[in-house]
């Protein structure tokens, strides 16, 4: 246990990076995922095809390859984030951090898109027909009947996507952001004898973080449950 307690400050800083990566890419991926889903289910065939191709391609590429693209290949074609240099206390959000956030967002938003689409598919057709039958115009049917149900139905899949994102932040650690994974690796490197204790501590903190997210999602899901 000493191995972790002696370096408590470093461990805390590492998990701050993890949480920051998770929160920023989480919010961004929700925004872009929703946008993609809108293209995907929209009436414009060209956009829907293009979004489908994009989503299929990104979903089937390993996250690591996407992060390598933004971290290592991107700068060669002028995709860099050198303009980003933010300091929050001891935390430095620089171009590496930004590249990882962008990679995580690109990857996760395709999964968000599919999750939201499954939510839209879960709305029974009869609901839309009923909305039209009582004379609601398109915008009214969307606003009052279909989208609220679709959003509620997509809470569980979107939550699993976000939990996966939380665990995926560790991949950023393999590419130079000093978050939990990278910190764990360096602590074990310095003190091989306490390997098991270090791993268990980091693992348990991750279990707790995952439980916090899924607890929040469960509360939301229960509050938003639709009577069927």
């Amino acid at each position, binding site marked *: 246990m000493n191995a972790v307690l002696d370096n408590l400050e470093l461990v805390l800083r590492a998990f701050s990076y993890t949480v920051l990566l998770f929160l920023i890419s989480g919010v961004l991926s929700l925004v872009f995922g929703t946008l993609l889903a809108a293209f995907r*289910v929209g009436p414009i065939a*060209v956009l829907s095809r293009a979004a489908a191709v994009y989503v299929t391609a990104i979903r089937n590429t390993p996250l690591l390859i*996407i992060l390598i693209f933004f971290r290592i290949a991107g700068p060669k074609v002028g995709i860099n984030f050198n303009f980003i240099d933010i300091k929050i206390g001891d935390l430095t959000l620089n171009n590496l951090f930004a590249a990882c956030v962008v990679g995580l967002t690109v990857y996760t938003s395709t999964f968000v898109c599919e999750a939201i689409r499954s939510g839209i*598919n879960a709305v029974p057709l009869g609901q839309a027909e009923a909305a039209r039958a009582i004379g609601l115009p398109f915008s009214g049917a969307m606003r009052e009947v279909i989208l609220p149900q679709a959003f509620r139905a997509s809470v569980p899949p979107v939550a699993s996507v976000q939990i996966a994102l939380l665990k*995926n932040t560790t991949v950023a650690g393999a590419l130079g952001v000093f978050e939990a*994974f990278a910190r764990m690796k360096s602590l074990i490197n310095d003190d091989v004898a306490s390997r098991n204790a270090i791993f268990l501590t980091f693992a348990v903190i991750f279990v707790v973080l995952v439980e916090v997210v899924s607890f929040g999602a469960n509360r939301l899901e229960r509050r938003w449950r639709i009577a069927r």
Partner: protein
Amino acid sequence: MTAPAVLFDAPGPRTIARHRLYTIIAGVALVAVLAFVVWRLYDRGQLEYAKWEAFLTPKYISALLLDGVLVTMKMALSAVLGAVVFGLVLGAGKLSDHASVRWLSWAVVEFFRAVPVLMLMIFIFFAYGISRGDSGAYWSVVIALMLYNGAVLAEVFRAGVLAVPSGQAEAAYAIGMRKSQVMNIILLPQAVKIMLPAIISQCVVALKDTSLGYAVAAPGLTKVGQSIYQGFGNQVPTVIVLAVLYILINLALTTIATWVQKRFVGEKKVLEVSMVGKTDAGSGLSV
């Protein structure tokens, strides 16, 4: 595609005209984006022959296919086979009548599902693989993926057994079968059929995750790619080639899963287990 049926009425003539206008605008925008990407690649010299030469040289092609694709598939396959066994044990444990076994299996499943694969991988590497060179790295990846995917498949297995109509088990008990017989003769064969597509989809997840072996210098496609771009300095073309290879393998797997779904499961509902890579429109996810 049921979504448009929910969201839209059949469009009238004016709406069709409007959509045609949007289509043209969107098409032009997309073409412009693509053209910009190609121009950027050209402008930064990424389309030069020297950068792509490696992918036209037989030596590197065979390295990519043999040391890359083949090793990656071998890793993913051994991980999934191990995961199926591990998942069967844990899934059976979660369905056990003994509360202690149930709780233990539940705890193991929750632990391995919540811990990032990469952390698990590096821990196994330090604990076991570091002194064993290349094969140590290889097996660290396989074992980590086995534990994670096994925990996910345990849920698939449980859901599969529970999806068999309860009358089946009741009838089996009624003709005097023992618990193990009911499981092995009646429930498992029916459950396996329902589980197959989910297991194949999980292969996609395992295959993508083998790339994480990068962190422990394990062999595989990503490693081969890394040594190619370090040698040639052609990062952009290499990443594109790697991505295309991964996408092709995964699409092949997805096609097989869809075919198995049609062939063995038919129109029945797909198993809904969170964290499993789904075959189609559902909520697929990974890692």
